[in-house]
């Protein structure tokens, strides 16, 4: 099965700034590929290049088998994009937005109304379908945008921060839908996100992008294993540390601030054996390796801060959406 996306030295420069630097990437058909990176890393530029919204400075890519430089229209026919900032037309109703999109993407006329109804139900906007998008909340706009990105059943779907700004219930719905697509196996999904648990639980593989390069590419568990190990803190009786020294999965144990600090592999599996060997324990704290640690190690940035700052940018972005 040919890869859904292959890039060859794909590069984009904006004047002196190289936003995407000779990226060579292969994304398998049907996979969910997570793209992680701080703001300014080149995530959005890469997506814009692959979706032909930007012209590459050099290099090329095949998306769903079509060349982005030579056949941009064919590429666009096979992809769907859910943008980071909702781009739904707020002077139209939800339904009209979906209809416009369907016509632009060549959805067979006979099927349009049916698909619109099903999509609206999926994102739970049926009741508000005929109100102007102007009256929608940020979360509703994003849900409409998701419905819109999916309605023409693209082969490759780009989701740029798809659950940003959604309430937990809506986020869950979106994840369930993405997992459903994943199981059906005929859509390739490229997902950019700041939410670690989202990337971790949904992605088959993760690419970490920083300053225009892909610096790491692997499955979430492999990446976490590369970074290190879990840490377990035990508040326990003195001497416990000696009891634990022999255990094979512990690589390091020290006493720190009145607690025993252990560095070990796969705390999930090994916790029971550890506690059995330790005997009476007052308190256990388990710190699992997270993608945040992965990111910290490979890109040296704190991606969580980015996510917090993002809500401020969201507010600024919302203030943009006032016509005149």
């Amino acid at each position: 099965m040919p890869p859904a996306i292959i890039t060859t030295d794909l590069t984009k420069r904006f004047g002196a700034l190289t936003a995407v630097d000779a990226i060579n990437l292969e994304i398998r058909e049907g996979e969910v590929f997570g793209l992680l990176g701080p703001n300014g890393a080149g995530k959005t530029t890469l997506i814009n290049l692959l979706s032909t919204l930007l012209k590459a400075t050099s290099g090329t890519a095949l998306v769903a088998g079509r060349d982005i430089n030579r056949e941009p229209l064919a590429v666009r026919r096979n992809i769907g994009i859910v943008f980071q900032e909702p781009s739904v037309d707020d002077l139209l109703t939800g339904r009209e937005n979906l209809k416009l999109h369907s016509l632009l993407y060549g959805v067979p006329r006979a099927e349009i109304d049916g698909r619109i109804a099903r999509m609206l139900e999926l994102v739970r906007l049926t009741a508000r379908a005929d109100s102007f998008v102007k009256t929608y909340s940020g979360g509703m706009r994003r849900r409409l945008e998701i419905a819109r990105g999916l309605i023409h059943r693209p082969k490759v779907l780009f989701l740029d921060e798809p659950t940003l700004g959604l309430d937990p219930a809506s986020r869950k719905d979106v994840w369930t839908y993405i997992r459903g697509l994943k199981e059906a196996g005929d859509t390739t999904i490229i997902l950019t996100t700041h939410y670690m648990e989202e990337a971790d639980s949904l992605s088959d593989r993760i690419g970490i992008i920083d300053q225009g390069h892909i610096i790491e590419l692997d499955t979430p568990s492999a990446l976490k294993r590369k970074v290190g190990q879990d840490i377990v803190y035990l508040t326990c009786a003195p001497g416990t540390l000696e009891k634990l020294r022999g255990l094979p999965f512990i690589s390091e144990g020290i006493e720190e601030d009145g607690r025993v600090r252990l560095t070990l592999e796969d705390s999930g599996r090994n916790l029971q054996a550890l506690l059995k060997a330790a005997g009476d324990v007052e308190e256990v704290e388990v710190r699992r390796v997270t993608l945040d640690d992965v990111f910290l190690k490979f890109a040296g940035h704190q991606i969580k801060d980015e996510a917090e700052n993002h809500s401020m940018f969201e507010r600024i972005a919302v203030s943009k959406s006032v016509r005149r």
Partner: protein
Amino acid sequence: MFNFPAIYALLMREALIYFREKERIASILVSPLLFLFVVGKGLTGSSPVEGYSYQQFIFPGIVAMVILFTSITYGLYIIWDKRLDFLKEVLAAPISRTTLFMGKALGGMLGGLIETLLLLAIGMVFVMPLPPWKLLLCLAASVPVAYMITNIGLIIGAKMKSMEGFGLVMSFLTWPMFFFSGALFDLATAAPYIRVVALFDPVTYAVDLIRWILVGYAYFPPLASLAALLVFCAITTALGVAAFGAIQQEK
């Protein structure tokens, strides 16, 4: 070659939005009506044309003015689409930039024609009687004019980055285009420099043609005006398709 469902979809979108922005429909008519009913009735002197009052003489020019203002504003408003990221949706769709351009151009044309119709209706009641054939010819003449001016607006809008330039365009392009076209005076008796500039002003030919239809007087031979309009249409189409082809997503 033409993606009809897509063009239909784009046109439908423009039409829906146009009819929903009712204040804009009315406000576009304010300046033209001021010219028609204040300047038109204020400058009471002789009219350049026998048998018609000055107000009636400038009426064709005011019709052209409405088309000019509606169409160019429409074209420039694509900047809002850009700024608010709505344009991303159509840029990401599998339609050629040419299709997008055509959809937008036709959409702007529709707006221009509707405003023209409204003005002609007002004119029929207050300015001069209009037999149906004059009305129809006028509308027919408005089609290439609206198309051409919309294109100009779209070309500038495609290149501009923000709404701040909008005022500049109005001051340095739109108003001069109106004044130099001879809408308010007879080019035959105007100072030479005005006549020279008027030659390059597409609105001149629009005014002249419509004036010929409405009051039977024209500075250029009507066929020459029509030809000039069609040439401008062709040129602006080519430039428009090129400008749209060059649009890339910012950020």
